[in-house]
């Protein structure tokens, strides 16, 4: 069916498409008039969007498929198609539900900020982009949503633009993700010209029936995966994700923890049959396993709370990617869902901690917060246990499933790396929790006088709900899998794995607690060894990937290639542009002679014009 834009039948879809942008503008305009209004607009729109998603979830019968006529002119057909199936609904629920929780949480966290209208406008715009990504059927529509998110992410990372570090982190995020996006654009062009379609669903169908050229499919699949690498912070384009923590913590929670970074996984999951058809999944699995290892090891030594969480995000997204890569859509998507919830919980808890401690972000400077903020400690502990993969929290099930699938898949490299990454998560998250909440407050002078309680309604409530959900959804794990995949999934079974994982986690847990609570001096002794220092530096700087990328772009791209272009630009293009000035002025002076301002002259010109027409017709018609 072809509709015109504006005649979308479904009220839920309409709300999801229009409300975020409308809300964004309203939040800004009303917020300028009265600052509190910005929050309320955002809160209401956030709730509306969440309700619309729930409405779609409840009223779902069969996939919603709407074709809107965007541009239809001659040979140019650009439809705007909406397709909402189970996968989209799960992503919608995550995006809008966590978005709503995040907006609610920001009431206090951003409460003192004078720029709230700008903040909420950008957040709503971001949610709009995420919605657009997950409900469009065409790659081009998805790409628009993808870019909207990239823009919003850039704008929100550099929200405190007057801080140099925030401004440059935003720019870095934009450039790194753009590098991946260029490949997606190339993939769209390739598919449009060679496969004749950019319809995501049709691509899957074509892959299933074997119509697609395999080389083309492999190339485009890898190009799209490059975009996913950029957006989801995988090897080698991950450093931006760590620096993105310069933004407000609520932004990190929503965009760089729970939703936007999932979009790379979403696009691969959406095109899963397509990826399965090509052999690109092998590369996906291996790149992801490497990223998981890098993320989890680097998270072990970070100082800042948010950086630990950022590296853990990278590592867990990789685990989800591994799930997809080894051919288990169920495992990958399940981990995405679980991770989104517990990571939002962890980031928001971190936000609460940072808020309580008056913006102290270094975990080593905190400590002993257990007494002042017991609720936050408990909620964060629940998130941590889920992240670590301790039963009965949800993280256990999905992580187990991914690792088991990886072992069944049979590639040793992937399986070993992902197992290490899965095991190490308990080490770094325990370390973080212990540093924040146990022991005695370190560096007392900075925050002992300043701690004030968390507000129950604005802070504890969203945390509590998320903590409850991360526990509760472990009951529905097989339902979620069934809902997304649509058929019964055979659980991968590796006999020794559960026992091995659990005992490994227990040992790591014991070591970390022992070291960080009882034997801090021993830890320092170990760390002061020269060899350990080197390893520490490598891990702390994320394997120096940022430095490498900077070196390459500085020395190879900027100083050699770009210099050549600059020479060309200065001496050829600029010269040409400058040459137009005397040329246009000469023309102007010439034409100006005809514009004396005297009406008689103008009438004369009119007569000349008519003469030209009549003479032209007389000559031409004679020839006809």
């Amino acid at each position: 069916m072809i509709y015109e834009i504006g005649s979308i039948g479904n009220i839920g879809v309409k709300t999801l498409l229009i409300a975020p942008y409308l809300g964004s503008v309203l939040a800004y305009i009303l917020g300028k008039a009265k600052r509190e209004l910005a929050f309320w607009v955002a809160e209401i729109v956030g709730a509306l969007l969440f309700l619309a998603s729930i409405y779609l979830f409840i009223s779902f019968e069969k996939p919603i498929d709407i074709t809107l006529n965007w541009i239809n002119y001659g040979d140019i057909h650009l439809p705007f198609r909406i397709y909402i199936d189970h996968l989209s609904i799960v992503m919608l629920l995550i995006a809008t539900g966590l978005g709503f929780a995040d907006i609610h949480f920001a009431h206090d966290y951003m409460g003192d900020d004078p720029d709230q209208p700008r903040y909420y406008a950008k957040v709503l715009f971001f949610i709009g982009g995420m919605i657009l990504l997950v409900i469009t059927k065409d790659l081009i529509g998805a790409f628009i949503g993808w870019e909207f998110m990239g823009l919003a992410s850039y704008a929100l990372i550099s929200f405190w633009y007057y801080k140099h570090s925030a401004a440059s982190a935003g720019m870095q995020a934009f450039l790194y993700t753009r590098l991946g996006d260029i490949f997606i654009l190339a993939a769209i062009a390739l598919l449009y010209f060679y496969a004749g379609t950019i319809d995501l669903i049709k691509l899957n169908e074509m892959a299933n029936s074997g119509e697609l050229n395999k080389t083309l499919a492999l190339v485009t699949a890898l190009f799209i995966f490059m975009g996913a690498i950029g957006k989801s912070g995988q090897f080698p384009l991950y450093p931006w994700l760590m620096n993105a923590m310069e933004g407000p913590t609520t932004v990190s929670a929503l965009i760089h923890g729970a939703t936007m970074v999932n979009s790379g996984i979403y696009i691969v999951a959406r095109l899963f049959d397509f990826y399965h058809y090509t052999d690109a999944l092998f590369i996906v699995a291996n790149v992801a396993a490497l990223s998981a290892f890098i993320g989890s090891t680097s998270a072990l030594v970070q100082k800042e709370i948010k950086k630990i969480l950022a590296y853990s995000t990278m590592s867990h997204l990789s685990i989800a990617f591994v799930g997809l890569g080894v051919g288990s859509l169920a495992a990958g998507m399940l981990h995405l869902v679980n991770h989104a919830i517990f990571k939002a919980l962890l980031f928001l808890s971190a936000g609460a901690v940072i808020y309580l401690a008056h913006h102290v972000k270094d975990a080593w400077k905190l400590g002993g917060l257990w007494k002042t903020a017991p609720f936050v400690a408990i909620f964060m502990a629940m998130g941590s246990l889920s992240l670590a993969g301790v039963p009965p929290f949800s993280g256990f099930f999905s992580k187990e499933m991914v690792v088991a699938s990886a072992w069944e898949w049979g590639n040793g490299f992937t399986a070993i790396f992902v197992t290490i990454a899965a095991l190490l998560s308990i080490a770094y998250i325990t370390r973080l929790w212990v540093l924040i909440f146990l022991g005695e407050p370190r560096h007392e002078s900075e925050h002992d006088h300043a701690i004030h309680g968390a507000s129950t309604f604005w802070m504890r409530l969203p945390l509590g709900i998320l903590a409850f959900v991360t526990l509760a959804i472990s009951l529905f794990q097989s339902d979620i899998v069934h809902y997304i995949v649509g058929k019964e999934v055979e659980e991968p079974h590796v006999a020794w794995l559960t026992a091995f994982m659990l005992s490994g986690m227990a040992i790591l847990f014991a070591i970390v607690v022992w070291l960080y609570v009882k034997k801090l001096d021993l830890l320092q002794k170990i760390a002061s060894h020269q060899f350990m220092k080197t390893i520490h530096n490598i891990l702390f700087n994320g394997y120096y990937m940022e430095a490498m990328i900077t070196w390459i772009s500085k020395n190879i791209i900027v100083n050699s290639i770009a210099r050549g272009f600059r020479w060309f630009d200065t001496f050829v293009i600029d010269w040409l542009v400058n040459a137009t000035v005397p040329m246009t002025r000469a023309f102007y002076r010439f034409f100006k002679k005809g514009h004396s301002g005297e009406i008689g002259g103008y009438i004369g010109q009119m007569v000349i014009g008519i003469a030209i027409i009549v003479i032209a017709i007389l000559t031409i018609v004679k020839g006809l």
Partner: protein
Amino acid sequence: MSFVVLVLAGLIVPLFYRQNIQVAKGIAVFAFGAAAFLIFNGHSLADYLDYFSITPSIKLMEFVLLLTLAAVSLSLTGFERPLISQMLFLSAVSLGLLETNNLFIFIVLFEAVAIISYILVSNIRNYYNAEGAIKAFIAGAVASGIILFGLALFSFVTPSFEYNQIRVEGKFTLIAVAIMLAGIFYKLTIVPMHGWAADAYAQVNHVAAAILSGVIKSVVMLATFNAFHRFLEFYPAMAVIIFSFFAILTMTLANFMALWQKRISKMLAYSSIAHSGYALIPFAAISSKFAYPGILYYAIAYIFMQTAVFLMLNELRVRAGIKYISHLKGLGKRSPLVALLFTIQIFSLAGIPLLAGFMSKAAAFYAGVDAGLWWLVLIALLNSALAVGYYVILIKNIYLDEPEESSTIEISYGALIGQLLLLGGTLYFGIIASNIFTSTMG
């Protein structure tokens, strides 16, 4: 019915505007709204008059026209109050001009529009206004003579004036049609019939200039296409030669002239002339089935952006005395909202994507390419690039230069609403292209 409503409102309004301009404005906006409502419900002149008919695309254009005029009347100040009733009459006549399917009636209504435009420009406050009005009037009088001469010639050869019964036989008809077109070219400001416009647009009251260069020109553009495309289809090769020649001449000359202007209104006047040149491309591409969507899109996009820039210029001149390009310096800092509204419409004129100006150029140029006139489209594209040169000078002054004065510029609420309406049109038709294309189908 809509015609009657508008004429009646035009007669009633003068009773009010001396005492209370707000009431007059309210009546005008109500009349425009009522007319739009009636058109939406299928009422048109065709209901009770022969020689009129209406199509979905004409309906769309009428909506756009009424919306634009409502936006203009909202932004009027006390000085311009006589314009309210003139605009109401103008809109009534324009509806007829768009709906007619008889050449004789077309010419009569065209003359009526011309006469209303003379009255519009006669709102004289100073020497410059007077000069512009006189120029518009004298050039218009000459053009009227030419058109009537063409019509007289034509009436000798034709059995009927109805569009679909017209037969083209021999040179005589062609010359008659060409002479009529030449007369209409004056209103479309095609070089070399443009001299009066370059002065008049810049010199008359800016609101009148907005109506003259935005509203009337768009309506005439579309109505002329409707009236004459059958003739042109008989001799597409001739249409190509004549219209390409004038299109190239018009846009090139106007763009070079605009590039070195110092006065904003003068620059916008030349930019308006250049746009007439682009609008001739669908005429030249008459053999393509995309010619009509092309001209329709052009007329609709152009009415919004051209009217908006002149209206905003009027506000800037009245509130802050801004006349020359250098006066715009630092406008972005002085009044961010005003600067943004102005900038978006200028970007639309320059043809920046996601704005109506871009899509309309794309549609018009597409018709050209479809008819095989890629060289004409290439020249038009080069001209568009040249045109960006002078639009960017405005933007540079607005945003990159430091303000010389620090006072902010407050525009009235009416003007703001008017600008937002026009902005809505520019954005809507820039992003959502399907309405226009589907209105021309079937």
